[in-house]
């Protein structure tokens, strides 16, 4: 279709996002005990697209940063004004473009800056998960968590945990599977 309006296809892809080489990653992790999630050279480093709401979760991730809390350098954060802004299309787009996981974070229920936004996310997410399961996407690849502005440590632990689960699961096959379809036709 040749529509004039910009579409999701015009958004930057996961491939466009800056990548962090493993050695840079290691350099940023100053506590050797926490080095494990960032991976030894050659091991699979998942790429997680993180959609974080501006008011709570992004501030929480920022707190993890300013507190120098080490965590796996596997998440590429995209700040959105509210978790309700996260159109399910964004999640599908990230997966189709090769993200190994998608992390959605918003304010805890009751704490939404816009009163009700995170409730919309709460309603969308279970059906999105069902749709993803029908489409063969493994459960661990997409996750919703509530992270407040004071939960820097929780954000760090969350990213570490998701990274470990994705590492156990292995790289996403979606992008290559779709490319192979057309080649094998």
């Amino acid at each position, binding site marked *: 279709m040749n529509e004039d309006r910009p579409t999701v296809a015009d958004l930057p892809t996961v491939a466009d996002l800056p990548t962090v080489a493993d050695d840079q990653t290691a350099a940023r992790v100053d506590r050797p005990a926490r080095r494990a999630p960032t991976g030894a050279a050659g091991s699979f480093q998942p790429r997680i697209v993180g959609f974080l709401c501006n008011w709570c979760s992004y501030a929480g991730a920022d707190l993890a940063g300013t507190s120098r809390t080490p965590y796996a350098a596997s998440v590429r954060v995209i700040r959105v004004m509210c978790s309700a802004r996260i159109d399910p299309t964004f999640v*599908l*787009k990230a997966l189709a473009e090769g993200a190994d996981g998608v992390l959605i974070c918003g304010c805890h229920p009751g704490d939404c800056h816009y009163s009700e936004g995170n409730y919309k996310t709460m309603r969308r997410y279970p*059906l999105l998960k069902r*749709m993803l399961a029908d*489409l063969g996407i493994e459960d661990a690849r997409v996750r919703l968590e509530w992270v407040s502005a004071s939960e820097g440590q929780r954000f760090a632990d969350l990213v570490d945990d998701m990274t470990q689960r994705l590492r156990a699961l292995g790289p996403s096959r*979606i992008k290559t599977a779709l490319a192979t379809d057309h080649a094998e*036709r």
Partner: protein
Amino acid sequence: MGGRKLQIALYWGAGCGGCDVAVLDTNEFILDVAALADIRLWPIAVDGKYRDVEEMADGELDLTLFNGAVRNSENEHIARLLRRKSRLLVAFGSCAHMGGIPGLANLATKEEIYDRAYLHNPSIEPGNTTVPLAQTSVNGYSLELPRFYQRVFKLDDVVDVDYYLPGCPPAADQVRAVLEVIVSGVLPPKGSVVGAGDRGLCDECTRTKAEKKIKEFRRPWQIMADPEACLLEQGILCAGPATRSGCGARCPTSSIPCRGCYGPMPGVVDQGAKLLSAVTSVIDSKDPDEIDAILAGLPDFTGYAYRFSLPASLLQRSVRS
């Protein structure tokens, strides 16, 4: 077009024949078409062989209306052939446009489909092991069948498409309008969706819309739907909020919820994701358990949301291995 009659072909790939009937549904207008045009190939209605098409010069046809998705190698072969022979190729109907109903097969693998259709189906002879093969040897002769692809493709996955005419099937008045435009020679930009509106179906639907708050989803047969009120507000899943206008909202007007056959609105890539977003955000609950219970009223949401558009969606198919 000068004094020359328009040379046209109509073809069906993986479809049901409903699109061909939609052409006939233009009623007496089809006689005008017959007067203006030579129908060079139309398997459902007139005699014609693939060889006749192969013998045409490239670009000899002015127009091909291709309905149906691309399920097997024959569909693709003829799509490529007609593309070469036609000046204009129109993806006619939901299947050619987005994959359509056959595209729902992308929720299963080829192996699962064969198993269900030929190997373990209650209506076939137990123990059957015969499945269609692209090549079979019988008494020293080699027989060929079209190769069944791993998944369903939309038409523009295999050939360049000039226009998309959505609908399952396209509304007869829209078919007529598009044919008139093509005959006039004043063509819209290549790649346009033609014979449709550029707004949401709800905009065209005459039902009364109030604030949407859904406590319970219900199947259309479970209630006597109010004839005036929005179907979605009555808990009936309706694809209107995620669907392009242009059909005249004939389904909701007849108390049948929209199924989304006109595809997504302009600028939208993934119709299913948009329907998911629209439908779930109006659920009237803040309690995760209650939300789950309400969503249990949508037993096959994925199938509904992508009823016509799975091969055109972002993930295109199930990636289960």
